[in-house]
């Protein structure tokens, strides 16, 4: 393992993480809800109850880049994957997060903050699967 010091951004990572934690705390404190993004999107697809707050949160996410641009240019967003990969990845993420009841936000941030053992297991599993997938793609297949 070698750390890529040029890419590592500890200050903005911690500050951005704190904002994510603040947002999760606000949703819990005022709404009594878990900020689980896959759960919100999935519930919007499945049920007509509890639409208001879920849709509002998702609209907030969509508006964040516009709000950012009021003050500064957007940070880079580089998407190397081609369309077939993006579609396969999207299908896996959509299906997997619903089957596993959560993603990086619901299990990774909120679940660990609740000290949930289910979320701890889920986080370890999806992190490990992500590590192995990138290893296979970048180091085994790419040679």
């Amino acid at each position, binding site marked *: 393992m070698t750390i890529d010091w040029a890419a590592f951004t500890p200050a903005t990572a911690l500050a951005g993480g704190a904002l994510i934690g603040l947002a999760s705390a606000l949703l819990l404190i005022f709404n009594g809800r878990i900020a689980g993004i896959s759960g919100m999107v999935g519930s919007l*697809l499945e049920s007509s109850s509890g639409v208001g707050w879920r849709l*509002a949160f998702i609209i907030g996410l969509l508006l964040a880049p516009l709000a950012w641009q009021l003050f500064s240019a957007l940070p880079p967003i580089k998407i190397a994957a081609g369309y077939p990969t993006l579609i396969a990845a999207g299908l896996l993420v959509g299906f997997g997060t619903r089957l596993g009841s959560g993603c990086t936000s619901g299990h990774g941030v909120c679940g660990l903050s609740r000290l949930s053992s289910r979320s701890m297991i889920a986080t370890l599993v999806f*992190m490990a699967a992500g590590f192995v997938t990138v290893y296979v793609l970048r180091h085994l297949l790419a040679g």
Partner: protein
Amino acid sequence: MKTTVTALLAGLIFGLGLLLSGMANPEKVLGFLDITGAWDPSLALVMAGAIAVSLPAFQWLKGRGESLLKGPLQLPTNTHIDRRLVIGGLLFGIGWGLAGFCPGPAIVASGAGQEKALVFTLAMLAGMGIFRLAAHKMIPARE
């Protein structure tokens, strides 16, 4: 109404946190998942920063039992570690490693006008739809 406003605000802050931390950029997420290559540890600090803020809020609210808007706390009650949790986490992690997107960042990057993020997000919605139609047949909730 109040819960819609607080959810919108939480979504907006969450999205700004993803942008500031670099997590809306798949290149940076894949840099974290590439542990055997040039490793960018930023994502670990994003999680640490988020949990440092949200953990005290979760512990405080658990003791209080209701939200500040006097609503009930709606926390997950399932503590059973089952096949769905593990298989779901595996599939999600593979998709995450393929493209570098999980649900929140994909929605934020779509809001930033990234066409590839929108394609991923639409495929993710399709994956959630497939789950709704088929998962209970393929993978029973209890073994």
